[in-house]
C-alpha cells in the first residue's frame, strides 16, 4: 500500500516568516502534485513536478521533487495571511486499468497570523 506522509500536520506562524512543508513516501511516483484547499472548497492545483530534482517556483512558493522521486517539499518565503490554508500533496503511480492513481497526503494546515 502506497503511503504519502506530510509533515507537519499543523503549522501556525507569524506573517513574514519562512516555512517548509514536507511530503515523504517509500514509493517512487511518476509525478507529484501540490494542491491548496480553503475552508468549504475543493483543492486547487498549485504545481506538478515530474522530474527527479526538479524545482519550480510560484511567486514566494518553491516546490522541489526529490532526486529519487519519493519525496517533495514546499517552501514559502515571507509568508502572508493569504497563504493560510490546507496544503495537500498527491503522488501519481500506475494503478490497474486507470493508467495511474493519485495517492494523497493527509495535508498540512497552515495558519499565517498578521
Amino acid at each position, binding site marked *: 500500500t502506497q503511503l*504519502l506522509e506530510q509533515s507537519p*500536520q499543523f503549522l501556525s506562524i507569524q506573517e513574514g516568516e519562512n516555512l517548509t512543508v514536507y511530503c515523504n513516501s517509500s514509493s517512487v511516483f*511518476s*509525478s507529484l*502534485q501540490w494542491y491548496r484547499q480553503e475552508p*468549504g*472548497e*475543493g*483543492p*486547487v*492545483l498549485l504545481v*506538478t513536478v*515530474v522530474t527527479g530534482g526538479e524545482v519550480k517556483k510560484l511567486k514566494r512558493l518553491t516546490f522541489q521533487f526529490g532526486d529519487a522521486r519519493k519525496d517533495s517539499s514546499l517552501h514559502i518565503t515571507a509568508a502572508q495571511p493569504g497563504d493560510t490554508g490546507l496544503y*495537500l500533496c*498527491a503522488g*501519481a503511480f500506475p494503478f*490497474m*486499468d*486507470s*493508467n*495511474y*492513481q*493519485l495517492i*494523497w*497526503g*493527509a*495535508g498540512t494546515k497552515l495558519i499565517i497570523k498578521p
Partner: protein
Amino acid sequence: IAGITQAPTSQILAAGRRMTLRCTQDMRHNAMYWYRQDLGLGLRLIHYSNTAGTTGKGEVPDGYSVSRANTDDFPLTLASAVPSQTSVYFCASSDRQAGTDTQYFGPGTRLTVL
C-alpha cells in the same frame, strides 16, 4: 463556465436511508472521481470513471456505487447509509494524460449520517 457542481451542499441523513450525491462537470473531461475527506486521513478515492460508460473501484468503495451514463454526470449513491459514511465528499474531473494531469474539484457535499 461553472466547472464542477455538486448537490446537495450538505445533508443530514438517517442511517439506513438511500442517498445520491450529484456531480456535473461542463469541461468535457473524460475522467471523473469521487473522494471522501476525513480529518487526519486526507482524500481517499471511492470510485472513478476513465470515460463515459466505464467505472472502477478506488481505495474505499464498499457501501457506494456510481454510474457514468454520459460525459458530464457522475452520481454517487449510498444504498443504505451508515454513520461511518459521515464525511465531506468531493467530486473531481480531469482531462487524462498519464502521470501529470490536473484534477479539478467541486465544492464538496458535507454528509452527516445519524
